[in-house]
């Protein structure tokens, strides 16, 4: 199976994730879309590692996973506390920090 299929899948997932971040309002969904984008990137990293026969991409993917795990912890905590104070998880409602 040609590696380019993996890259196409990665691009597809990334696009879905990006569109999701842009169009959805619910913070949890936005968060999941970000995860989707990160994993799309992971997929392409691993694919390129495979194509070039080097381990750099795979190592990089591990780093991304670690960062993503940490981000989930912090991000969910923030979303929880916003929900508790404002009774909403919509990202458009949290717009006080502006001009």
């Amino acid at each position: 199976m040609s590696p380019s299929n993996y890259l196409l899948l990665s691009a597809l997932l990334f696009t879905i994730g990006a569109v999701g971040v842009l169009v959805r309002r619910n913070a949890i969904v936005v968060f999941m879309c970000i995860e989707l984008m990160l994993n799309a990137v992971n997929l392409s990293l691993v694919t390129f590692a495979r194509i070039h026969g080097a381990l750099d991409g795979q190592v990089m993917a591990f780093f991304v996973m670690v960062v993503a795990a940490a981000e989930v912890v912090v991000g969910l905590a923030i979303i929880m506390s916003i929900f508790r104070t404002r009774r909403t998880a919509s990202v458009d409602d949290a717009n006080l920090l502006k001009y």
Partner: protein
Amino acid sequence: MIDSLAAAELPEVLPAAGTASLAWLLLALPAFGALVLFVAGRRADRWGHLLGVLTVVAAFVVGLLIFLETTGLDAGQRTRELSLYRWIDVGGLNVDFGLRIDPLSLTFVLLITGVGALIHIYSVGYMSHDPGRRRFFAQLNLFVAAMLVLVLGNNFVMLYLGWEGVGLASYLLIGFYQDRPSAATAAKKAFLMNRVGDVGLALAIFLIWLNLGTLQYSQVFANIGKVGPGTIVAITVLLLLGACGKSGQFPLQAWLPDAMEGPTPVSALIHAATMVTAGVYLIARTHPIYDLTETGRLIVAIIGAITLMIGAIIGCAYDDIKKVLAYSTVSQIGYMILAVGLGPVGYALGIAHLLAHGFFKAGLFLGAGSVMHAMDDNVDMRRYGGLARHMPITFVTFGLGYLALIGFPFLSGYFTKDAIIEAAFARPGWEGWVFGLAATVAAGLTAFYMTRLMFMTFFGEKRWEHLETRDGGHYHPHESPASMTVPMIVLAVGSVFAGFLLTQGHVLANWLTPSLGELQEAPSSTLAPAAVTTLVLVSAALGVLIAYLAVGRRPTPVERPAHVSFPVQAARRDLYANAINEAVIATPGTWLSRFLVYLDNRGVDGLVNGTAALLGGSSGRLRRLQTGFVRSYALTMLGGAVLVVAALLAVRFVA
């Protein structure tokens, strides 16, 4: 050739010893008096005037002792210097606070402290009713100290220090009556017009420094021959500009009559006897420079001739007794400037006239002050008349000063002024005729306006009998107290004998030889000296006669006639000097300033403020991008990422 000639004439400069080493006291005494009186404030009100008189009298005594010691020395040893301390020591510029004690400076020291002491004594009486008397004496002492720095300094920087010092004292004293707007304006006018001249003096000093690298008189005069002729002319003209400012010479004469707003003793001391003659001192002191340039001296003589005519013409038209005397001063200083402009034949003659003038003009001003004292500070001669009987001492002393001024035979002016006119006639070619005739005509005009003044003040109808004083009472003219009349008597005696004593056997010229060089006899002129004397006497007699016919024989209207012929109108308006200054300098200056203010407000400020407004405005618009919606930020990030990727791909595949 010129170099060695100039160097040969210069006297040897010796260090001061004996009494001359006390010369620092001359400066220190009045400066101390001024300091104490300024600092002590009201506490000194009761005894301040006595301290003021004492310091100047003490300075006179010191000056007299040094003078007597110096007369005992050989002519070659009379030029001495006393270096007090190193004043300025910056790079190549080394200036000592040093005094030059030579016949010229000693002559001025005696004039300044002598006449100064008399006028201080007079002021005790004159200012006795004035609450600001202590301040007056403080400023008068300051003036004497500054004037002594001016004449005693042994370098151009000290000259400049004194020059500005007397300018400051003059400014303070003209504006002494601070509550009068006219006095404040006159003080400002004097200060500003003096600045014009001072710029000339400063530039001359810069030029000397630039070319010679030294400012000490002895070194400058020894090396001045090495400077190019063009530079010499430039230096002499700039020095003359300085002299014109301080001495009220054309074209800077307009401030001196206005300076009469100050108290009368100030007019006598500063604006008649001493400070305004500083210009003559400057030219006489720098005579080694003027000796090298015929052109420079010719310009000096022309300025002197123009000024002596202007002063004499305007003096005929004024009714204000002090302004008539002020224009007379302008005219007489014109004679002195003319004399020093004639070169080695005239330096000593100019100084002689300066000394004689110091006596009689100070006496005349003190007399005018005495008359004003008696007439409730009224200065309008049309309101005087018949005062001779009420003020006999004033009348006699004033009359002697008057006779000395118009050149009555065997009084001061006769000897000193005639000598100048003779020397003027002795110039070759057209110069002799122009300068000589101008001086002669001005002598006639002098006789006219002074006779007119005498008739209007001391003779004729008592016009004041029907008039009221400012506070509604009647005039009660009375003789002034002894503190005022004694100085007037001393000065009157001086104005009678000074001329004869100074010129007889060239006493003064011989005394001044170490400073001014040998007095050269004027070359034989187109007119014999006897003819010149006759001409001047006839001219003066005509002036007196015309004044008698026009003023003495006819009643004087109390109100000033409004419709008069054009020459009188022009003279009343100072020959349009103020109008010309206004039109040529003041108005264009105002326009230029307004233009620059406009340029500053709109141009410079506009540029700065415009840039700020542009940045502020655009920032305000850019701020709107910060909407607070996270998704719009995400879109921006995505757009940016897409752009970066696109750029990378473009570079990769296109290039």
